[in-house]
């Protein structure tokens, strides 16, 4: 007997997605993670626009991760125009990207995901029982948002970012003063760590390829080599030779695969797995007592990885400010020219790929964007198929609850993915 379970509109994730599961006696027959987000055609609306607007437009792909879409676009544009920005600009961009990940992780972990593990329908209900945890989470989010504002002027769709640098950069005094806020956010994160580690995460592991940026001596976000747990080690320029997209007939969503292998996972868990030695001392100490051994292939452990990243990134932000060298010319001159280039950065949810081609006056001729959620959509499905096979005899509600929890652990950003997926609008 076949049985169908629908989740019409997955809650507590960004964007509009649904899930259709067909169960047979022996397990999951068919599973479709569908995106019913309206397509917004970013790659089309970029055509013909000037090079200096690309990051401003791609920022609007996503309100949760605008920073990554700005920085990835800026890096690709600068590469195409043959410009290398000075070291202090790179450091300020890294600070801003750290702010982006802190804000996104705190939002996801404390406001959207944790209610799954405390048995609440939302953060409002959870806050009644665990006010300190929610307050700590909101405090970390505040630090992330404020860090983006300090560098970029606004937390959602920053404004001072331009090709070649910034229109204005913060003074040393303002940066120095901000260290206090970072320190209290770290204190908050350490304080809730026992709570986060003590929650019951489903015991489920599926070995799959984990992929992330890797760089010696820092926790890489804006640049690095692409490294995987299956031995991949390539530059961003080689990415499209190794990772390809295919159209699948049952769904309108494009899936990504590593050539000759399978789907793969991106985001906080793969990053911690691949950059474990780059974690700060305090983050590594936390990792030692979190109850999980790395490398870890349990997708639910992403929540723990998020907290470890919060701590290591707060440490890294403080040391970037302490090291100094953040002053200098806010922007370097960029002259438009014909060319093409791609860039890869770590968005909060994993590798974000942008690629552009420009004509001799710097107008966009071609744009191609693959955000992380879109890239590992197939991996979420494969996880779900294996995970749910142990629960086929449970009620529909229980299956729906468990599957949403797993989808949520990936922290999918559906607005991001939808504009690049084959989208079929379907409502059951």
């Amino acid at each position: 007997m076949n049985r169908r379970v629908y989740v019409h509109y997955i809650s507590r994730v960004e964007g509009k997605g649904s899930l259709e599961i067909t169960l047979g006696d022996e397990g999951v027959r068919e599973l479709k993670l569908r995106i019913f987000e309206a397509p917004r055609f970013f790659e089309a609306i970029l055509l013909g626009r000037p090079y200096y607007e690309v990051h401003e437009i791609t920022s609007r792909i996503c309100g949760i991760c605008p920073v990554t879409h700005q920085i990835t676009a800026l890096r690709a544009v600068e590469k195409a125009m043959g410009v290398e920005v000075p070291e202090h600009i790179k450091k300020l961009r890294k600070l801003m990207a750290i702010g982006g990940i802190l804000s996104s992780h705190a939002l996801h972990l404390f406001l959207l995901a944790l209610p799954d593990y405390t048995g609440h329908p939302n953060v409002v209900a959870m806050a009644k029982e665990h006010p300190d945890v929610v307050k700590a989470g909101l405090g970390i989010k505040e630090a992330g948002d404020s860090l983006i504002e300090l560098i970029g002027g606004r937390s959602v769709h920053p404004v001072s970012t331009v090709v070649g640098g910034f229109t204005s950069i913060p003074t040393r005094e303002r940066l120095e003063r901000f260290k206090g806020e970072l320190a209290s956010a770290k204190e908050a994160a350490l304080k809730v760590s026992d709570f986060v580690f003590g929650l019951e995460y489903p015991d489920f592991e599926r070995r799959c390829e984990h992929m992330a940026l890797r760089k010696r001596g820092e926790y890489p976000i804006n640049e690095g080599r692409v490294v995987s747990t299956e031995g991949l080690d390539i530059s961003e320029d080689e990415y499209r030779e190794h990772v390809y997209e295919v159209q699948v007939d049952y769904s309108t969503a494009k899936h990504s695969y590593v050539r000759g292998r399978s789907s793969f996972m991106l985001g906080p868990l793969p990053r911690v797995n691949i950059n474990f030695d780059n974690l700060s001392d305090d983050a590594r100490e936390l990792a030692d007592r979190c109850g999980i051994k790395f490398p870890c292939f349990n997708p639910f452990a992403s929540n723990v990885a998020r907290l470890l990243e919060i701590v290591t990134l707060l440490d890294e932000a403080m040391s970037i400010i302490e090291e100094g060298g953040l002053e200098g010319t806010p922007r370097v001159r960029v002259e438009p020219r014909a060319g093409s280039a791609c860039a890869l950065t770590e968005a909060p949810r994993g590798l974000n790929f942008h690629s552009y081609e420009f004509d001799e006056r710097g107008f966009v001729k071609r744009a191609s964007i693959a955000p992380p959620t879109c890239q590992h959509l197939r991996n979420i499905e494969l996880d779900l198929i294996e995970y749910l096979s142990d629960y086929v005899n449970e009620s529909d509600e229980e299956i729906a609850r468990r599957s949403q929890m797993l989808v949520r652990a990936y922290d999918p950003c559906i607005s991001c993915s939808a504009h690049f997926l084959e989208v079929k609008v379907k409502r059951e």
Partner: protein
Amino acid sequence: MAKMRLAFFKFASCSGCQLSALRVNERLLDLLDLVEIDYWVMVSDLRREGPYDVAFVEGSITTPEEIEEIKEVRRRSEVLVALGDCAVTGGLNSIREWMSQKEAEKAVYENPLAIKSTSVRPVDYYVDVDVYLSGCPPSTSDIVEVIKDLALGFPPRLPKYPVCVECKLSENECLLLKGVPCMGPVVKAGCGAICPNLGRPCEGCYGPTVDPNTESLIEKLREAGLSDREIMYKFRKYAGLTKEFRREAGL
């Protein structure tokens, strides 16, 4: 006082307006003393069917399903707030109104037949809107202000004057006079002139101000060295479909 029942709905958009609302961070718990969240899929599993006192609608209307959905939202809501440019003017989504649907689909999708998308329209093309909250995104303080005003029974008071007013209040040197192509004179205030404060020209993300003198600005933009194509694209960005900007945007 009974709590005001709030709902948030998302159409074609980036969720940035919802994020700007959530930017209240630590004040969220205080705000929840004033309001009850009846529907907000990004944040909560609970989905009450209404009626809602206030519905915040983010995003533009771009598919046949969304047209039906926005009408349903209107039926269930006492006050409907268009939250952000996509809902107010069509926003960045409207850029694709200047290319054929086929052209847009082909640039993104291998198999355009699967795409069900119609013209990009602001919310008030299909239903009545009570409050317009412009911005890409609207500032957190404006969103909170509107919630407070509605809870107290005031009509929300949002600025209609141009960005230049806020820019002058910030005591900035005028970017246009320095030869930097700034949209400030024709764009609605509300952002606090954050871009000019940081030396960045206004890009127009709050949409047109009342009765803007676009002709005179176009002259200034030409003097600043922009080509006619670049000028057209400046108007064809956040609010190209509006009656104030559509001619300049090339419609």
